[in-house]
């Protein structure tokens, strides 16, 4: 009776077997990604609320932003995701040189994206955009813009830090393939979030 009880408890697992057939590092990374995804789910829902409850008309995006410029930023981020994937693949195959080369390309892509975002912020602030006021219409528009792109940009920045550390350690031969894969998972997540922001904020 006592034994049956113990077996039903989660502790009866013993902790040695992964329920997802993945290493604990990967499982933890996915738990982190899901919680971080929920943060953006909340932020995007908040943006939807602000937009639908605004009395003043929502500005036309093409009058505020240069859509080709946003398209270029999207292109850079998607490309950096592909180079990251290649780096993960190379490190899995034990090809350290290729992995390092593609990690550096990913860092260049991420830094370019961040540069574009800094340019966009500067441009908007120069035109009078503030957290609580907007020269193009509904003040909630700028609030949503700064919060969404700010949170995403901070993720890109932390991703760059992680990638730089991974690249240095790969160059020294101290990062196992799994380390590159974990950095890759985070970087692809940053790209994933941008897909949602790009569609829901810039296009819809």
């Amino acid at each position, binding site marked *: 009776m006592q034994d049956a009880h113990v077996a039903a408890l989660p502790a009866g697992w013993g902790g040695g077997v992964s329920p997802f057939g993945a290493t604990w590092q990967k499982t933890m990374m996915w738990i982190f990604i899901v919680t971080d995804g929920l943060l953006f789910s909340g932020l995007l*829902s908040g943006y939807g*609320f*602000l937009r639908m409850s605004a009395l003043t008309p929502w500005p036309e995006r093409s009058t505020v932003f240069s859509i080709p410029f946003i398209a270029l930023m999207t292109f850079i981020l998607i490309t950096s995701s592909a180079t990251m*994937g290649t780096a993960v693949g190379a490190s899995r195959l034990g090809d350290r040189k290729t992995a390092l080369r593609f990690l550096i390309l990913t860092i260049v892509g991420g830094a370019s994206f961040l540069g574009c975002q800094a340019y966009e912020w500067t441009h908007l602030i120069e035109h009078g955009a503030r957290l609580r006021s907007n020269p193009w219409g509904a003040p909630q528009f700028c609030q949503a813009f700064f919060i969404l792109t700010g949170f995403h940009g901070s993720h890109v920045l932390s991703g760059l830090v992680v990638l730089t550390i991974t690249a240095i350690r790969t160059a020294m031969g101290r990062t196992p393939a799994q380390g590159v894969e974990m950095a890759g998972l985070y970087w692809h997540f940053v790209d994933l979030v941008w897909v949602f922001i790009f569609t829901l904020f810039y*296009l819809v």
Partner: protein
Amino acid sequence: MSDGATAHGSTYKIYWVTWGILLVITVAMLAAEKFHLPRVFLVLFLVVFMLVKATMITGNFMHLRYEQRNLAFIVALRLLVTSAILFSFLTPESISVRARRSEAAPPPTETAHHP
């Protein structure tokens, strides 16, 4: 040796094929903006392709396709269900907030009559 080279090629291929498809979808989404589609169709088109892109990124770039099925289910279900709950609760609320705001704000014609 040639086996190794083939393995390398096929390992990288998936990422660049995905990259190509993602680019084509992005261009299609940008083009859809230019056509004067009815708003409902445009939003539907954009949201569907946004989800297709998200599936491609999680599946091919993040390797969720190759993980155990339960991991993919838990990740997708958690995010989709929470987003659906947030959206379905916030939408009616935002509409009612908007209605209350427009009641509170006097119409422009009325204010013009005041001295």
